[in-house]
């Protein structure tokens, strides 16, 4: 079946702003949006996009599909019988076509010290019960695709907001029974660009392709930050 799709094109060496261009693709039942984009790339090799695993785990192929952030490889053309407009992830600077500048996202992730902090030296594995694992496991499933940042208007309004995925990652470690680093992670979350920039819009969780529920992580972070605030009032 032939299908017309529109793709936002932007070449920084020539254009002042992105423009939609339409293409024809062949769509079968199992054709994903990524497949469609790759078909277009065969017709027009100048189209730039990121992708790799095509199985919804590497997190590189995020785009806006009819205005909603989605993974191209996990979204199917068959589900868009009407129009299908593909544009780069919102709230990020567009480098070229569907490629956005991901460096702010990476910086925000690193800002929360997303690694296990534990001074103990040992050659033995920690014990961790399935219940303790379950406390943070969901938050450890984030594939860093950045869709939640494109979904979050607060990030759009304030690019300094460290954002849902970074806070989720902080919470992932804070809730890990093996971790002792909460104290060094909290200052980032406590700031006005930390958890407090979120107004629980909640769209981040709607679009998350891995059901991580970043909105829950951020708002649990508010509780943690508030208790940290109270504790700080009693400790000099």
């Amino acid at each position: 079946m032939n299908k017309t799709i529109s793709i936002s094109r932007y070449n920084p060496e020539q254009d002042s702003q992105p423009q939609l261009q339409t293409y024809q693709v062949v769509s079968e039942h199992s054709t994903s949006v990524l497949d469609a984009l790759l078909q277009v790339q065969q017709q027009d090799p100048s189209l730039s996009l990121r992708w790799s695993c095509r199985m919804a785990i590497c997190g590189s192929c995020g785009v806006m599909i009819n205005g909603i952030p989605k993974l191209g490889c996990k979204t199917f053309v068959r589900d868009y019988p009407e129009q299908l407009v593909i544009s780069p992830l919102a709230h990020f600077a567009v480098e070229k076509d569907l490629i956005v500048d991901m460096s702010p996202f990476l910086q925000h992730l690193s800002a929360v010290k997303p690694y296990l902090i534990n001074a103990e030296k040992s050659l033995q594995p920690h014990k961790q019960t399935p219940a303790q694992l379950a406390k943070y496991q969901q938050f450890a499933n984030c594939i860093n695709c950045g869709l939640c940042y494109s979904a979050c208007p607060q990030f759009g309004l304030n690019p300094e907001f460290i954002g849902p995925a970074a806070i989720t990652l902080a919470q992932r470690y804070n809730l890990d029974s093996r971790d002792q680093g909460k104290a060094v992670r909290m200052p980032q979350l406590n700031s006005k660009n930390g958890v407090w920039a979120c107004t629980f819009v909640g769209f981040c969780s709607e679009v998350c392709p891995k059901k991580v529920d970043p909105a829950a992580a951020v708002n649990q972070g508010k509780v943690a930050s508030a208790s940290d605030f109270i504790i700080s009032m009693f400790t000099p």
Partner: protein
Amino acid sequence: MQLLQKDIIIVGGGGAGLRAAIAAAEAAPGLQVALLSKVYPMRSHTVAAEGGAAAVTLAEDSLAGHFQDTISGSDWLAEQNVVDYFVQHAYQELVQLERWGCPWSRKADGTVQVRRFGGMKTERTWFAADKTGFHILHTLFQTSLRYPTINRFDEYFVIDLLVVEQQIAGVLAIHFKTGQLVQIQAKSVILATGGAGRVFHYNTNGGIVTGDGMALAYRHGVALRDMEFVQYHPTGLPGSGILITEACRGEGGILLNKDGYRYLQDYDLGPVTPAGQPKNNYMELGPRDKLSQAFWQQQKLGLTADYQGHAVVYLDLRHLGSQHLTQRLPFICELAKAYVNIDPANSPIPIRPAVHYTMGGILTDINCHTSIAGLFAVGECASVGLHGANRLGSNSLSELLVFGKVAGEQAAALAQQTSLVPVSAIMAQSKHQQTSISSLFGNSSESMVAIRTEMTQAMEQGCGIYRDNNGMQRCLTSLHNLKSRYARLTVSDSSKVYNSALLQHVELGFSLDVAEAICRSALARTESRGAHQRLDEGMTTRNDRDFLQHSLALRQADGSTAISWQAVTITSLPPTERRYGAAAHSPANSNISQLKAAQEKGLQHE
């Protein structure tokens, strides 16, 4: 052209590259490590590994057992000293990852849980649900952030190694974002660029798995070893090739042909184990090469079903129940739903074999050092000698960790003793590359997509699960043909910023080189062993007299490939017949049990 100076360069941000980077940063905190990757590290294909990582863990298991499984899995083509080192260090590496925060699945008492895996005689595969590679990669990536000396160069695409008189001097890379050519000097360089599955048509690999590192080394005269051994995974989704992990079978999934018959019993893997009660080394838990070959045989007999034009058999998980499936195989449920619209709790999943892993790779010694001084290789791009003719599932992730660490430490040690090769010595090479890159732009009638598709199809037809001389010759002719067409191919998009067309062009060149090495090596091995199965007369069985040897593919000055041979290191386990199912317990295998007793003494955890 930008010029940068570092101490150590690591090309590749997958499991192997990141593990090496951390090891180097820990071993020598004074050295600057450059970590280059053509994609953000967490996009590397390690992320897709589902099943798990092997190490001897249970009290009733033994290092000798893991050693023996790996050697016999390799059809005796593994380097036994390397396997020995590997089995001794795997456990500690998985523990290290645990201490870095990897969310390994646990037993009720809080200890790490292990699962069954094909070709392993006991449970020794650590897993993190069915996203083991994902969790390993993210744990490593996140851990790497704590080392200030690890300088990341994300989306830098390495196009050449800078080599001066058999001594590494650095690498040449394109910064994807700006199109700038960057020269980075270093005292040691580690290649950790992953496999080459994308040279085949049906594969479980990501789009970036194009064999770059293998070609980079090969072009500078480093041998590629055992390239003919390409693993077909028995359970890929039809069409896309997306992997359905072996852990499905470890959990008790069964394989059925179109008549609902468990056909594996006809291929020396029986007797039938009851559905849901898997037994190590029997039936569905036989090794991958055997399972993929059984599919091929069934297809020949007309016993496979059709799924949208693809020949398939079925992976049936229904008897495991939906609760168990969502708990242990959540990602598989998600994939099956998304890509073939099937709920594994209700219907069997259509599957077919797909190229999965390149056993061969850049020849290194046990220290991951190649024949170029200061150049190391590790991970799927390398052939340190662990997998031989067939890799056992879950050995590869452990390999990334064990040898990633070795490579990092060795590279650091070497970098501390050497100094940079002067820039003047590499300028000519860089300039030459610069000119040849700029000469690529233009309009030609050749289509890159056509060349790439023809290559993957030629490989699929000529170097598939079963091979014969005529098929491979045809494949080789096509490859030569494609190479000359490639020489005329140009890049029509001349933009600088994120020029995908340019990158794909260079990648295709790498893939063509690797494809030729695979085909040449396969032609030269006139026996059947592990993943290399020939149909030609007199070549259908293993021939230890002539071929208990590694193949080495070496690039000649004229661009062609020459094959030579290298002896296999055998320390304690001389070749016997490889057997699975009930046959494994017949008397012919008794010398294994004797050996096992002998090794128990020698091989214990340090």
